[in-house]
Every structure is written in C-alpha cells, then in structure tokens.
C-alpha cells in the first residue's frame, strides 16, 4: 500500500500541476473576426460607424430588415394611401393584404420589421455618439470632425424618429443617454419627444452644404427634414416656411451643387440622373458591390413587372398603381385637374380582362396630365426603352391586381447589368436610389405652408412652378415611332383669378395642393402621410373606396372595407409591447 501511495501521489501531483499551471491562460480565448470599441475610437473608426448609421437610410439591411422596412414606404405610404395595390397574386406577401384593407393587427410581421429597422438605425446612431465621446476623451479626433460627425448623426437620428412618428405617432425617443430599461412611450412624454426630434434635426441645419460626399446629410437636407418634422408633428407652418424658403433660395446638394427642377419630368427617375439637379437627397444604392443586392434597392426589389426578359426586373409583379390614381391624371380640356373629385366618373379606358392577343387601343382622346405615363405603365404606351407595354402578360394576376405597372423606380433596358445587380433571381436590384427629398417636393411643401399662412399668391406661383415643368412637351412620353406624344397630353398652369383659379380661397387652394402632390409625387411613398398631415385619412380614403376603388377591386377588398379612426396610424408591434412589458403602450 505504501508503494501505491507514492506512485499514485506522483501521478496525481503531476495532474494537479498541469491543471493549475495552464488552465487560467488556456481558458482565455478572445474573439476572432470582430473589433472592440477601443479600436474604433478614432476619426476613421467613428466615420465607419457613421457610415453604418447612414446604411440604414434605405431601411433595409442584411442583418434582418427586408422590403418590409423600405424607407421608400411603398407599403405604408403608397399602398396604404390607395395610390397602389399590392399587386402580384392574392396569396403573395399576404401580410400586406390587411395593411391595404385597413384590418392589420399588432402582430403583422411587416410592422415588426419596419419598427426593428428604424430603431436599429437609431441604435447605430447612438453608438456613433458613444464611441465619438470616447475618441474625444482620448484626443483621437479633432473638434471640427467631431462636431460634423455629431451633427450628421443627430440629423440621422431625427430622420429615423420622424419615420417612426409617421407610422405610429406615439413612439419612444431614444438617444445615447437613454436608459433602455426605463424608456417609455407614455402620452406624457410625447410633447418632449417631438421637441427632441426637432432639436436633433436642428443640429444638422448648421452643417455646411458641401460635405464632399453626395451621400452625407448637409445643412439643406437637415433644413428640409426639420421643416417636414415641424409640419408633420406640430403643424408649425410658419417655422417650416422660413426653412423651406431658405432652401429654395440657398439650398445645395451635399457636394455643393445647385438644386432645381429637372427640365423633363421623366428624367427625374432616370437611374443616371439619380443625383441630378432635382435631387436634394437621394438614398445611394449600389449594385454589384458584393452585398448580394442588399445595397441595391432591396426594399423595392419586388416592384417590377412580372414578365421576365421582355420587361424589366423579371420579378415580382408587386406595386400596381390603383385605378383612382390613374384617373386622377385626367385633365379638363383646359389642362387642369378635376378638383371636384369627379375624375372617376368616366374612368380611363384600360385592358382589364384582355389577354395580350386580344386587340386593345389605348384612349387617345381623353386629355391627360403627361406625368401619368412616367408614373404608371399601361398597355399600349411605350415603357422607357423596353418597348410598348403589352398588357396582362406584364402582370402576375390581372384579375386580382389591376392592369397597370409601376414605372418610376424602373431602370432602362440599356442600363441592365451595368446599373443593376447580376447573377441572381432578379435584376430588380438597381442603383436607382429612392428620391428621399427632391426639389418639387420642397416647392410643394413651401406652397402648403404658404396656403396655411394665407399667402395664396405665393402658393399659386409655387404650384405653378411644379406644373410648369410638366408642361414641357420635350418631357412627354413619345409613341413608339417617336412621331408624337403617346397620348393626348394636355396640361396647363393655374390662372390667376377667374373660376378656375383655386387659389382664391384657402380651402380650395388646399384641394389644389393636395391634388398636385398626388400627381407630382405619385407612387413615391408620400400619400398616406400627406393625408395624415392634412387630417383627411378617413374622409379621403373612404371616399375613394366607396365611390370607385372598392368596387373595381372587390376581390381584393372584399365586402364593405372602411377606414376607421384608428387607421390613421399603424398599431405598435405586439412583440415589442410584450418585450417592454408595462412601458410600451399601444397607440390605440
């Protein structure tokens, strides 16, 4: 036994020595393939984090935010605003259906993704500011750079919060000092939150206009965003008017270039002119950059005609302009729109129910606003350089979605493979960035402020500037042999005085302005939020549904769809309420 003890003791001792001598360092494994905060606390590191915060402007991201979150708001702004139908067939992306029918619940996955995207963006901004503070404390960044980064970051944060406000109104505000375990969206905090959002946007208004890079926010962008926030959240038209007037006079894009009207309306949406004179801020999309489409308009990738090869994109037949939108483009013989809502009385002829082989000639007589055929693809009309739209073979299920195709975001055939992503199931990832803020939008916002502050002559002048550009016959869609306009385009500016001048009273001026935004900014994701700002969501949408759209799309809307008072916003995602038990309240 003694022998055993000695030998055993030696071996056991060896084992213990081995155990204790190497285990502590052996058990320290640092992560591979990632960085810690210290490494990023420099000018370049903070800049890279800021780029990461800019990367959410399109709403989508490879870490979990798809087309549900697109900041072009084609679902929440356009479809919800009755400019467009979901399209495709009834069962595709069925979560859009209840949003379009005003019956969505708090568990709708689209809303959850949108919410997640916006607050991830805000979290990214706050990380920029946190790391920036570390870099400043370490003296690793100049005061000038730090100030620019901070102002850009705060402008982004204001923009993202404003997006959240547009959908849900009653939102939590999060900045770099917020205790996330205590933050709420209580009613008592909403006034403060609105002021914080405006203060964030205000921080950007002193940024220079020339930021060297077109994708950064500059002073002009911040002023527009602040004006939009004042209008949307506070109905502060006086404050907004000052900012917008300043932008019209002194505004520049982020490389310091002049801004103004693109001479031909259709050129605004040409991929190659995405950063042209009309652009105040275009979300910068890039293709074939190794992101697999995530940086190339992932948010709008579904929204191309269905017919592969002969039409652009090759997928997926979503985002079909509504009949009401199309009819709105009818003009009276004098070239002015029907402001009395009678435009649906004699709907524009279309090819609903026809196969491509069945003959169809588009209406060549009815006077039309030329912007129609840059906004909507329809049978018989040339579709960019893709040839003439051939009708129902461009549509996935015409009986469900209607006969039209989207057009504004679509690239030209000549751009395929160069300005579109290659080697995937669709070519619908493009460099055709969403026009987040364009000049005409700002001019119309200014006109709106002028109407609300009773400066009707100035408002007429601004609305007419927008209409005036559209009257340029060089900008009309030409028929296939280029011999003339593709339809009977008749458009004019509003006269001063007389029966057809709506700017004689504030009330009729509002109607004209509302129609002008519909015509100029159709399918650009603004409509529902415009109605929200004007306080007419229920009345306007119910009017369209009951008088026209609900009838022609009964398969889509079913029986008796109505827009209720709660439908002015969207419900806050239930999953988020559950995760913040007791702190996040439903908004209805």
């Amino acid at each position, binding site marked *: 036994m003694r022998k055993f003890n000695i030998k055993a003791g030696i071996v056991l001792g060896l084992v213990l020595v081995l155990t204790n001598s190497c285990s502590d360092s052996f058990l320290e494994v640092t992560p591979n393939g990632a960085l810690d905060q210290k490494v990023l606390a420099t000018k370049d590191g903070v800049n*890279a984090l800021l780029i990461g915060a800019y990367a959410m402007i399109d709403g989508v991201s490879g870490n979990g935010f798809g087309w549900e979150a697109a900041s072009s708001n084609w679902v929440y702004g356009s479809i919800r605003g009755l400019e467009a139908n979901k399209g495709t067939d009834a069962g595709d992306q069925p979560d859009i*259906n209840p949003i379009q029918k005003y019956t969505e619940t708090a568990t709708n996955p689209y809303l959850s993704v949108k919410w997640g995207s916006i607050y991830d963006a805000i979290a990214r901004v706050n990380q920029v500011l946190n790391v920036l503070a570390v870099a400043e404390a370490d003296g690793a960044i100049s005061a000038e750079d730090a100030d620019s980064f901070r102002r850009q970051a705060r402008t982004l944060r204001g923009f993202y919060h404003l997006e959240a406000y547009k959908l849900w109104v009653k939102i939590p505000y999060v900045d770099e000092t917020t205790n996330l375990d205590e933050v709420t969206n209580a009613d008592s905090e909403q006034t403060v939150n609105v002021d914080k959002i405006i203060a964030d946007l205000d921080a950007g208004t002193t940024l220079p206009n020339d930021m060297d890079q077109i994708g950064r926010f500059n002073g002009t962008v911040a002023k527009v965003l602040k004006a939009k926030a004042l209008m949307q959240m506070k109905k502060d038209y006086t404050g907004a008017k000052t900012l917008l007037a300043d932008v019209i006079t002194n505004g520049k894009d982020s490389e310091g270039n002049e801004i103004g009207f693109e001479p031909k309306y259709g050129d605004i949406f040409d991929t190659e002119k995405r950063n042209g004179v009309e652009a105040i801020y275009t979300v910068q999309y*890039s293709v074939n950059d190794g992101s697999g489409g995530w940086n190339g308009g992932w948010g709008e990738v579904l929204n191309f005609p269905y017919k592969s090869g002969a039409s652009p994109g090759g997928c997926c037949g979503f985002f079909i302009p509504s009949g009401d939108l199309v009819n709105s483009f009818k003009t009276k013989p004098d070239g002015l729109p029907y402001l009395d809502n009678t435009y649906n009385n004699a709907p524009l002829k279309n090819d609903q129910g026809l196969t491509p082989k069945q003959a169809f000639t588009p209406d060549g007589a009815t006077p039309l606003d030329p912007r129609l055929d840059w906004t909507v693809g329809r049978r018989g009309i040339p579709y960019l350089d893709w040839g003439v739209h051939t009708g129902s073979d461009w549509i996935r299920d015409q009986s469900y979605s209607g006969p039209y195709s989207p057009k504004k975001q679509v690239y030209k055939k000549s751009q395929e493979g160069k*300005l579109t992503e*290659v080697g995937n199931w669709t070519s619908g990832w493009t460099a055709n960035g969403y026009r987040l803020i364009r000049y005409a939008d700002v001019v119309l916002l200014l006109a709106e402020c002028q109407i609300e502050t009773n400066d009707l002559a100035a408002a007429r002048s601004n609305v007419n500037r927008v209409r005036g550009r559209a009257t340029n016959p060089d900008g009309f869609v030409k028929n296939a042999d280029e011999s003339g306009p593709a339809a009977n385009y008749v458009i004019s500016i509003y006269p001063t005085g007389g029966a057809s001048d709506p700017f004689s009273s504030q009330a009729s001026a509002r109607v004209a302005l509302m129609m002008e935004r519909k015509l100029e900014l159709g399918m650009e994701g603004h409509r529902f939020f415009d109605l929200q700002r004007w306080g007419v969501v229920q009345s306007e949408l119910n009017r369209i549904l009951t008088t026209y759209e609900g009838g022609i799309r009964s398969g889509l809307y079913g029986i008796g769809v109505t827009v209720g008072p709660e439908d002015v916003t969207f419900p806050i995602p239930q999953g988020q309420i559950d995760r913040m038990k007791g702190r996040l309240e439903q908004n209805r």
Partner: protein
Amino acid sequence: MKKLYKIMRSMAMVVGLLCFSISLLAQERTVSGTVTDETGGGMPGVNVLVKGTSTGTVTDTEGNFKINVSGDDATLVFTFVGYASSEIIVGARSVMNIQLTPDVQTLSELVVTGYAMQEKKDLTGSVGTVKSSDLVQVPSGNVTSQLQGRVAGVTVSNDGRPGSVSKVRIRGFSSFGNNDPLYVVDGVPTQDISTLSPNDIENFSVLKDAGAASIYGSRAANGVVLITTKKGSNNGVKVNYNMYLGSQDPGKGPDFLLNTQEYADLQWKVYKNDGTDETHPIYGKSTNPTPTLPSWAGDTDWYKTITRKALVMNHDLSLSGGSQNSTFYVGMNYYKQDGIVIKNFSQRFSARVNSEFKMAKSRISIGENFTVTGRTGNGVAGTGAEGSPIQTVYAIQPIIPAVMTQSVEGISHNYVPGEYGGNGIAVRLGNGSNPYANAIRNGADRQQDVRVLGSFFLGAKIIEGLNFKTTFGGTYGSFYNTNWAGSTYENAENQATASYNETSGYGGDWVWTNTLTYDKTFGDHKLLLVAGYEAVKYGIGRGVSAARADYFSDSFAFRTVTNGAKITDGSSYYNTPSTLASMFARADYSFKDKYLLSATVRRDGSSRFAPANKYGTFPSVTAGWRVSEEGFMSGVEVISSLKIRGGYGTMGSQLNLDPSNQFSLYGGGIADANYDLTGAGSSSLKGFRQTRIGNTAAKWETQITTNIGFDAGFLDNKLQLSVDFYTKKSNGLLVLVPLSSLYGAADAPYKNIGDTKNTGIDLQLGYRTDITPDLKLDVNFTFTHYKNEIISYAGGDLNYFDSQIISTRIGSFNRNQVGQSMGAFFGYKVIGLFQSDSDVENSAKQDGAEPGFFKYADINGDGVITPDDRAFIGNPNPNFTYGLNVGLTYKNFDLTAFLVGSQGNDIFNYNKWWLDFWPSFQNQKSTDLLYNSWTPENPGASTPKASNKSNFSTNTQSNSYYIEDGSFARLRTLQIGYNFPSELTNKIGINKARLYVQGVNLFTITKYSGLDADVNNATSDTAFGVDLGNYPLVRQYLVGVNIGF
C-alpha cells in the same frame, strides 16, 4: 464484446495453464473434445474445469480441449464470458463435443461507462446499450438513423436525404438551443458521428441520467453516447466481408394532386364561387361552360418526373488479428446511396486503423484508433425550403411540360421542342420552378469533405489495480463545395445570368485526457476509483467563400470563380474557438455484490464564460440494491434477478452559448453596414455597426436529474425488464434574449432566463427462448415516453417566444410558452366553416368572414376575433415512441423484423397552405380543394371554399386546419437470412457465409395524409413537427452477404 472476450480469454488462459500444470501430477484418464458456439464454430479460450477440483484447461484456437478426469462421475464445467456455463457429467465418454449458448443475462455484462468499463450488474446509473449487430440491420450510412427504436429513452427522427443525419434526442429535450447529445468516440468528444462507418462500431452506450453522465460535466446535459470501435484479437487473422445492394423505390408519391384537366376545372370552380368574369389567359372566357386547354398543355406527374428507383450499396471489408503483444483492426467501408430525386446522391469511403501494442511485460500499452472518411455528394435542400424538390412537386402546375414537345410563344421566351417547360409559358402558371430542370442544372454541384477522427493512447500499469492512461485525440475536417446557379429561360421570373459559388473551409478540435484508475476487490468490498484531468479545445476553423456572376457559357468545364465577370461574394469566416479544462473523479463501491454506491464529480472551466463564472461543478450520486442476492429472495423462483437503483445529480450545458457571448463587439459586412456615400452606384464604403451586445453574467445551464429504476429478470432470465422513471429540471437555460428593438439589432446576449422540466419513463423488455432446440425466439421492445414543460422564461417578464424552422409564407407555427411543451403549435382554432351570411352575422366579428371560409373560436368571448383568440392547437411531441425487434432463428435460417413507431404527436402540414388554397400562388392544388371543398351544396366539407380571396379567414393565418395526427408505426426492416452450413463453407476456406434478403420501410400505418409521417426538422427543438415538403423515407429492397474467413 470482442474486447471483453479478449481480456477474459487471456485471463482464462493464464489460470487454465496454471491448473493444467498441477493436474499433470494426478495421472488420470483423458477426455478430449471440441467446444462450439451457437453457430457451430469452434470456441477458443473456453475455461474447462473439473468440478470440485482445481483441475482445468482452456480450449485452443479451434475450440479443442483435452483434460484429465478422475473417473466417470467427474463433472466438467465449461465457462465462457457471455455464455451460459454448462455442467456435464463425463460418464463413460472419452470424447465430449459441447455447444455453448449465449447467456442473455451476461451477454451485455461489460458496459462502457464514463472513463471506465463496468459490469452491467454493478451499474447504478441509467445506461442503455445497443449491439452493433442490431444497429447495422438498418441499411443506413448513418449510425444516428440506425439508433431509432433501439434504446428506451432515445427519440430519433429521420430525414430521407442521402447522407443526412437524423435528429437524436435523449430523454426529451430541455434546452431552447442545441439538444444534440455529446458523442465520445474512443475518448474523443464530438457532435458529429456522421463520418463513422456503422460496421466499425463495437460498443454503443447511451448515458441517460446524471448518475451515468455527469462525469462529462458541462457537456452532459443532453445525454452522452459512448462509442468504442472494434479491436483485433490475438488469435490469428480474421477477414470479414459484408455487403448489401439494393434499390429504393420512390413509389407513387402524393396521390392528392390534380391533373391538368382537374386543375382547369378547379379554376372554373373558383370563378363560379367568386362570381368572376374574365378571359383567362390559358383557358379562355370564364363564361364558357368548360375551360379549353391549349395545345401545348402537358399533364406532368412531377413526382414521377423527378424521382427514380435509386441504388443503395454498401461494402465493408475488415482485417483483424494480432499476436501476444499486439493487435490490429483495419476496416474499409464504401457506402453509396443515390437519392430518389434524380442527380441526388451521397457516397462515403472510410478507412479505419485501430492497433495496440504491449511492452515492458504488458505493463505499458500504446496504440491508436483512427478513421479517415471522404465523402462526396450532390445534395438537395430537404427542409422544405421553397424550390427544394419535394416542395416543388406541391408547387408546380401539371399543365407545364417538363420538356417542351412543341414550339410555344411564351411570355418571356419562345420555346422550341426539347427545351424545359416552365411558368414562363403563360401568365397564371404559379411561381413553382421546373424541378426537373433545376435538378439537371444543379447535377454537377458537389459537396465534398474529408474528416479524420481518432486518438492515440498510452496506458501504464503502475501497480496491480492501479492504471494510468493518457489519450490525445481530436478531429480535423475540411470541405469543398461548388454551387452553380445556371441562367434560366423557362420561368416567368428568370435568372438572367449564371452565378457560381465555391466554398471551402476547415475545422477541428483536440482533447487531451489523463486518468488514473484503481480497480480492486478486497474481500466483500469492491472498489473502482477514477480520477482525471482533461483539456479540450474545440471549434477551431476558418473558411472562405467566393462567388461571381455573369458567365459567358454554361459549360461545366468553364466553371471557375475566375471566369465570372462580376464578383458577387468574397468572404471568409474565422471561428472563435472554445476551451475547456476539467478535473473529474468517480468512485464505485459495492459490498457483497448487493449494495452498490457510486459518486462522480466534475469541475469544468470554460472559456465561454466571463472570469467570474468560468468554473462549474457537477456532482452525482447513485445507489443500487441487488435484491435478488438477498436470502429472502431465494425462494422466489420466478424472479431470477432484481436490482433497484436510483440517483441524483447535476449536469451542465454550454452548447447554446456563442464563444463570444461575454464581449461587446463591432463589425459588419457589406450587406449590413456599407453605404455608397460617394454615389458611385457600384461600390460602397466600409461601415461598421455593433454586432454583439456582451453579457458577462452568463453561467452554465444546469440540469438536475433524479432517476429511479429497476432491472429484473424472470424465468431464468429469459424475460428481462428494465424500467426507469426520471425527472430532469433544467435551470438557467441560456436563451438568446429577445431584446426590445430599442437595443438595436446587434446580436443579443444569451442570458440564463429559462427553466424547463422533463419527466419520463424508459422501458426495455427482452424475451428470449428456445421454442424448440432448432427454433429460437428473441424479442426486444423499447418504450420511450417524455413530457416536457417550460417552467419559466425571461424571468416572468415575457412568457413566450415564437420560433420557425424556415421562413414560411404565413409566419411561425410554433410557440414556446410557459406551461406548455416546447414547440407547441399556436394559432386560431377552426371550429368549422361559415355556412351562410346569417352564420357570419351571428358569429364573432371576423375579418374576411364569408360563407365557406374558416370560422375561428372566439376564445376570449369578446365577440371579435383578434390575435388574443389564438390558442395552442397541437403538440409535435409524441406521447410515446417505441421499437419492437423480433428475431427468429430456425436451423440455418434467421428472420428479423423491426418495427418503430411514434404515437400521439401532431404534425403541422404546411403543404396544405400551398395545396388547399387557390390564392397561394395558384400553384398545384389538392384533389380535396376540387372535390371536397365547401360549397352551399356541400356544407359538411372541412376544406374551405375554393376562392381567390386571400385573407384572415382563408390562408393567411396559422390555424388548426393544418394540424394532423402524426402517429405512425413502420416496419423499418424485415430481413431473412440463411447461414450456409460450415461443413460446406469450410471446404472452400470460409468460416462463415450468410446470405440475406431485406425489405426496408415495407409498410407504414398512419392517418397522416402527407408523404412521410416521420417528419424531421433538423436540429431545432423550439420549432419542429412541421411538414414543409420533406424528403420521405421510401421502401427499399436489398440483398446482402456476410462472409468471414
């Protein structure tokens, strides 16, 4: 068993020789003879003893013996481990030929347990074993699949894809993350045993409770499977060759799909139900009495088109043998399985070398166990991802020809004969792509890998009973995959240009184990002590992926990444490994072979935890009482043996914790953090984001188990029953906390915020008897029942989370909620279909309600159907699973039937979403929708009205319509074999030759309507039991031979 055989034989030889030398002095008459085993083969090393004396001998390599006896009344006792001892009076005979029969009781007497080998009678923990001969009865390339129904307490669900791994769960599952058991192969811990050749396995032990498994500490919570591989024996060279060859029959496939005419008729039915008036682009005006079919219309049976009778083939060749100081085993295996889906296959070649050398008078032994495996295959997505072959059968319309037979002017392409057909021929052809074209285009894709798994060991006998052993082992694997996505023309949504991707990487881990074992008997006291130290590093690895698009040609030879015009991916990963440093000890003590006591403890340190929480200690204690050894039991003849045992202990798990969990990290890829600040349109600037929120407070998942059970033998141990009752409480489960989005989308940290509880019963029943001397019966039955319940989650703040296997078109079906089983199905409860407008009027307000659509239960009774009315509508966990193995031998014939089953589990048949609702992409539909759906004339239907309306009351919600009973019983194999008589085979130098025929999956009894009720959902335990178009197990017919030289 062979190892045991070898050890016992060498011991017996020593004892026997000793005795023999003594007996020489007696000068009595000599008896000689041959001892044979149950197959008639000579048995070497059998101990032959003259009863009541110390005279004895040992049979030679042919089984012959010679022994001196004192006279005719002498009795010879023949003993051999694993066989019933036989006592025979010599009488007048001078030649005695004896056949020994295997002893059921002692056959599995030695069991591999944690860092030791123990006699089964001494076990106090819960350990299940499987004979390797049972495992290989199921012709599969994967041991995990062969395990189904073999061990009580083990639940296995299969996947029909060649080369796939089955899901193995030991005693239910307790964690929200990874519940795979820990496999330890020849001392090397691994999560992947798919590269093992089943024929190389010698011992297979499943450690089920803490008493057995907690010596594996922080990795034991999901159960531990110990595998040792075959070794050589030191009596000459043996050569074995086994093979089988067979055919897998895809069968008729789904019988619930429409043909072309029926599909058109269904469209007419939809028009009628919806009152739609239009010109259908294919069938003509909806006002026509019947649809007209175009001239190009095919009538494709897509299942038939993409499946085939497929080959399965296996060859095993092994050489083993040795001399006094060395043994070796060399095994080679080739396995090939073609998938029933065209072009799909998996093949594996593996080679194993196990050898051991003894030196310094056998005090030192040194050796290695190694296997190298190479695999190659063409895989298919099988989880039901859209576009996977079986799912596509449910998606694509029958009117589309697989290959065009005439020219057609399509919407996106003008087809000529010989081209693939597709939904680009016309609009309204759904979104399913041509699976035949896909399979052929992807036919040249390969997944290849090479993996080495093995260990070196050195053992030293320090003094009698005290042994030291050091083992260094590990795994290393590398893979190379190619993936071509060719350009398409036949679809409505085409891929314009081809893209090509190559992926490669390596991974590995190592383990170094040192143990001291002290094994000694002192009179009535028997003691086994083990102490050890182990260091492990795992998860080492890197990999790279590159892809380009825009290829000039689809030619196979042109497929390199370099040849693509545009880079679409260039990325790599670099794993953060984990380390583990552990000390462990066990003590097993028995007194008078009646009272058994065992204790184990392990202390683990892990790199996955922050310094304050690095170490965890996992103790267990078990006890047993062999009641049958007590005097008072001697009169109870019906009970031959009885042992009661029980135990308590803790185990841990850390599999769910990312190695970086404690760190807050930044990073970001092109797709999630880059932005094109410069407006170039084709490049983006590098951005970063926070990628991980760290948590330094995470600790081990702890599992506390109690187990009580008994092992009993009746009727001379012919009937054996083993029953275990257990409770497993899992505390502090590591959960990826669903943080509020206000925290951003960086990976949330794992926190210890969940508790679950599993209770269950394992029952194993064996019966073995000789009905007549020639007819022998051997029956084995296993029964597994578990029930799991989520006890708490997120500290009571949020009491559920939803989970899904893959993204579906209508969200998730599985909800994990406190008080429920894991993975329970959640949704609206369908209480019928609305029958009339007044029925709609008088029911709770429901979006989309109209006659013929779903009517949901108003659970909260508030008169309106809202998300609050969702309820638990099914449970994918079975009430019990079972396996029944019946073996019959009659003379040279043998028959084995093996039945497995699962009872009481629900399946969420997601395929119904595609098939039973018209607006689900207007893809292939079911005969139910055409013939049995609701109409005013058919009010009793359960399938809703055929309509193009997609809304809350039709196809957008998870509801109980999709739930089906998934119970099944399946004849897994039926095998009939014939052993050629040894007299015959010996003439040509063959010891043993057996020929068999086998049928696999010959029948399945189930009410489930889908292709296969054995639904496997990979590794997820929070979302499973969903049929997404899974790859079915099909019938197979095989012939095989076993030859031994």
